[in-house]
């Protein structure tokens, strides 16, 4: 027996905990080299089990925070087979069936009662006067800005209907009262009017209120549907914050339902369907995908349990042409097999594209400024302290008394707050904030001193480089569902972050007027090494192509509005990876957009999910992972993946088909 065969046998015996075979034992007795190998292997085992025992961080709180957020956003539904196996009942049967008469009646009622003057068909919304919709689409973002800045106060009441939450409760109805007083007083209460089968069912009675410096949300936590109606975790929760910074993104005011500044921020996403006059008011109907409309739903769905929507479901918003307030909006299921498969996975019934599954309709609205008393709330003692301390606004005007550096142009917004965070272990740097606002439009300028992190303050590694005056540079990110549009500046006078709900062009104009020069990121911020390799980020696509070390495929066709913004190159062992980020300029609500990754020496990872399917693509077979919205395949020696949580399979296949040499 050769030594290598004997050692392989010894190795397997160590792991299988079986005695070595007789031939191996015979060889071992006569081979000093193999006895040395065995002793060495046992020593390696002992050392490895101790040496590799690195201290493990406690990740439970952070994981559970994300899991709870996920559960709130997408209440898990048990698929029918799983439910049967568990001895329970699925929310809906998997097999296609007709909608129950009761649901059908309500759906038809909604369609007939709410879609006045329009007819919604599978082909789209037809009716009223289509007018010059292209010109109107271009005007809407600018008109929204004007409407936003001129609004001092607002009150409205919305009637909300939602279908298919559970089989036992197929229709739910709510009334939501909204109030806003510029710049930062906001209040929304949701009353659940649904006749539930019994009092045991949790009701979506919710409240969110802020006066700028405090913020409070209360209501039941999300409840997993299989646990209904008895749901211990749906106990009412109160989340309260004091010493809140102005326009803090983590405790946001969901005001898109008043003027949809995020949702309709750019003309590339405004698809005008038509014009009409309803109850004497001129209205314009706009259609967009649910993935681009989520801020409209955040207003009412910050807590509680709600039904899920498919990213490509159609949201039709009727805007008042005088005020640009959304007077009503409805969700219609997207057509197609992808949507049907998703629906099945969610345990939903068959949902046709012609009937709305969610409607919010303004019953009344007023632009009278609400009284301050409406927003006053006692902050609970257990409120978390955000550590922001206001200073007199006038102090910001006196350079000797403040660290403030103000932009020369703030687009006509007056300064409304100025202050700084207290230093703490979690914020070991000096952070001061200037806040400007008029109506619903706002802008903050944050300055950070003693910044020690190796990255720009407030933006990620795929921030887009934007040119500023005098050869300066800034780093821009579009709005996401949780963050506003931002520009970061790295300067000799500290780090600056400009954040706003103003359109991109307006925000960049402000950034250009800050009296500092934006510098490129230091090389050490872009190159991150670890023992296994490195990541080089902040690259343009051209530079990434040059550094890739293998021929890249780039898309020749992208969905409307998408363009490359940044790239990174990773080297790990023998594997080179190039990742390119494609985004739309105004808002990318999932915070990611489209990511194209290509790698050498990387096989297709093993499948992890029963829902993954293989699809023919580019003379090979690709894998589609619907839960991750990822299409991946190996082409020649290159692994390619396209991922975009807001895209469905046909959209990604179209992009994949257009890939070619640069």
């Amino acid at each position, binding site marked *: 027996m050769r030594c290598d065969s004997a050692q392989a046998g010894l190795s397997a015996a*160590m792991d299988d905990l079986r005695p070595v075979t007789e031939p191996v034992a015979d060889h071992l007795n006569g081979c000093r080299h193999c006895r040395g190998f065995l002793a060495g292997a046992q*020593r390696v085992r002992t*050392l490895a089990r101790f040496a590799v025992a690195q201290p493990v961080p406690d990740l439970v709180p952070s994981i559970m925070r994300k*899991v709870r957020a996920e559960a709130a956003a997408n209440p898990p539904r048990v698929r029918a087979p*799983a439910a049967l196996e568990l001895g329970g009942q699925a929310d809906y049967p998997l097999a296609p069936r007709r909608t129950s008469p009761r649901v059908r009646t309500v759906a038809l009622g909604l369609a007939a009662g709410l879609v006045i003057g329009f007819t919604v068909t599978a082909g789209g919304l037809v009716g009223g006067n289509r007018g010059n919709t292209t010109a109107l689409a271009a005007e809407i973002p600018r008109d929204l800005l004007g409407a936003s800045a001129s609004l001092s106060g607002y009150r409205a009441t919305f009637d909300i209907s939602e279908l298919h939450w559970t089989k036992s409760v197929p229709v739910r109805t709510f009334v939501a009262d909204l109030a806003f007083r510029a710049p930062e007083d906001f209040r929304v209460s949701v009353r659940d009017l649904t006749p539930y089968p019994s009092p045991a069912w949790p009701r979506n009675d919710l409240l969110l209120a802020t006066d700028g410096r405090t913020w409070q949300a209360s209501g039941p936590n999300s409840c997993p549907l*299989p646990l209904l109606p008895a749901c211990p975790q749906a106990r009412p929760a109160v989340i309260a914050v004091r010493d809140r910074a102005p326009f803090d993104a983590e405790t946001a005011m969901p005001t898109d339902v008043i003027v949809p500044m995020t949702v309709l921020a750019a003309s590339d996403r405004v698809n005008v369907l038509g014009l009409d006059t309803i109850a004497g008011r001129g209205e314009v109907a706009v259609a967009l995908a649910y993935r681009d409309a989520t801020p409209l739903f955040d207003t009412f769905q910050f807590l509680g349990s709600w039904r899920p929507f498919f990213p490509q479901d159609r949201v039709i918003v009727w805007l008042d042409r005088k005020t640009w307030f959304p007077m009503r909006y409805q969700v219609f299921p997207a057509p197609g097999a992808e949507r049907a498969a998703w629906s099945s996975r969610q345990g939903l019934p068959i949902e046709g594209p012609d009937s709305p599954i969610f409607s919010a309709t303004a019953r009344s609205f007023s632009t009278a400024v609400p009284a301050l008393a409406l927003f006053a709330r006692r902050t609970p003692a257990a409120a978390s302290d955000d550590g922001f301390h206001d200073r007199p606004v006038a102090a910001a005007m006196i350079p000797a008394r403040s660290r403030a550096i103000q932009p020369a142009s703030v687009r006509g917004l007056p300064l409304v707050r100025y202050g700084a965070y207290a230093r703490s272990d979690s914020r070991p740097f000096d952070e001061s904030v200037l806040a400007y606002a008029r109506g619903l439009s706002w802008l903050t300028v944050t300055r950070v001193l003693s910044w020690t992190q190796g990255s720009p303050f407030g933006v990620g*590694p795929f921030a887009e480089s934007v040119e500023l005056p005098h050869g300066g540079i800034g780093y821009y990110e579009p709005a996401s569902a949780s963050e506003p549009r931002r520009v970061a500046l790295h300067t000799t006078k500290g780090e600056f972050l400009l954040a706003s709900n103003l359109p991109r062009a307006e925000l960049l104009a402000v950034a250009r007027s800050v009296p500092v020069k934006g510098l490129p990121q230091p090389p050490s911020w872009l190159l991150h090494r670890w023992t296994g390799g490195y990541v080089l980020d902040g690259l343009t696509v051209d530079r990434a192509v040059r550094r890739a070390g293998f021929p890249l495929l780039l898309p020749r066709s992208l969905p409307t509005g998408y363009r490359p913004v940044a790239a990174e190159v990773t080297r*790990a062992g023998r594997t080179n990876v190039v990742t390119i980020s494609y985004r739309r300029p105004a808002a990318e609500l999932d915070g990611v957009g489209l990511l194209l990754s290509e*790698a050498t020496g990387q096989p297709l990872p093993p499948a*992890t999910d029963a829902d993954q399917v293989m699809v023919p693509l580019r003379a090979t077979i690709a894998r589609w992972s619907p839960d991750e919205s990822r299409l991946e395949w190996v082409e020649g020696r290159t692994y390619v993946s396209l991922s975009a949580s807001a895209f469905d399979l046909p959209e990604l296949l179209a992009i994949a088909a257009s890939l070619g040499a640069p």
Partner: protein
Amino acid sequence: MREPEPETIRRARAGDLEAWESLVRTYQADAWRFAYHLIGNRASAEDATQEAFLHAFRAIGTYQGQAKFTSWLLRIVRNCAIDAYRKTRRETSVPAEEMPGAPTPGPSGERLRISQAIDALPRELREPFVVIEVLGFTYDEASSILGVKLGTVKSRMHRARARLVRALSEGEAAHEV
């Protein structure tokens, strides 16, 4: 790694967050260690571990018990760790004490050498070594986690072990000189 109680899995699949938290608490350390050995960076391993549990939470409805829960979970961890190379993330320079291969407090020279040698293994050898030797899975389970054939696992495991034995003996020789 011990398997969870079937009742815990059943409750987690039904959406019970307390059951899910219990699974996270039980398996986060092994998941993190596995990710750490594949990526070689504490922060990225944390990201990958968090991402993996989130993916697992989303996919728990599809877990039908055809494989061990721990194998199923580590397969997801592996994919997330691999993703960590190519997905959006903010890497910062890793202090020397955070590098894989760096010793735990008070290491012997041997432990330092073995840590560095494990880290220096190519991924296809490091993966089975960590799964089998450090985390204690069988060849069958490693085959399922890594998505390769049983024979491949055995062969890679042996090659990994042989390299480590050689690295250890070379280190000893150098030390003696």
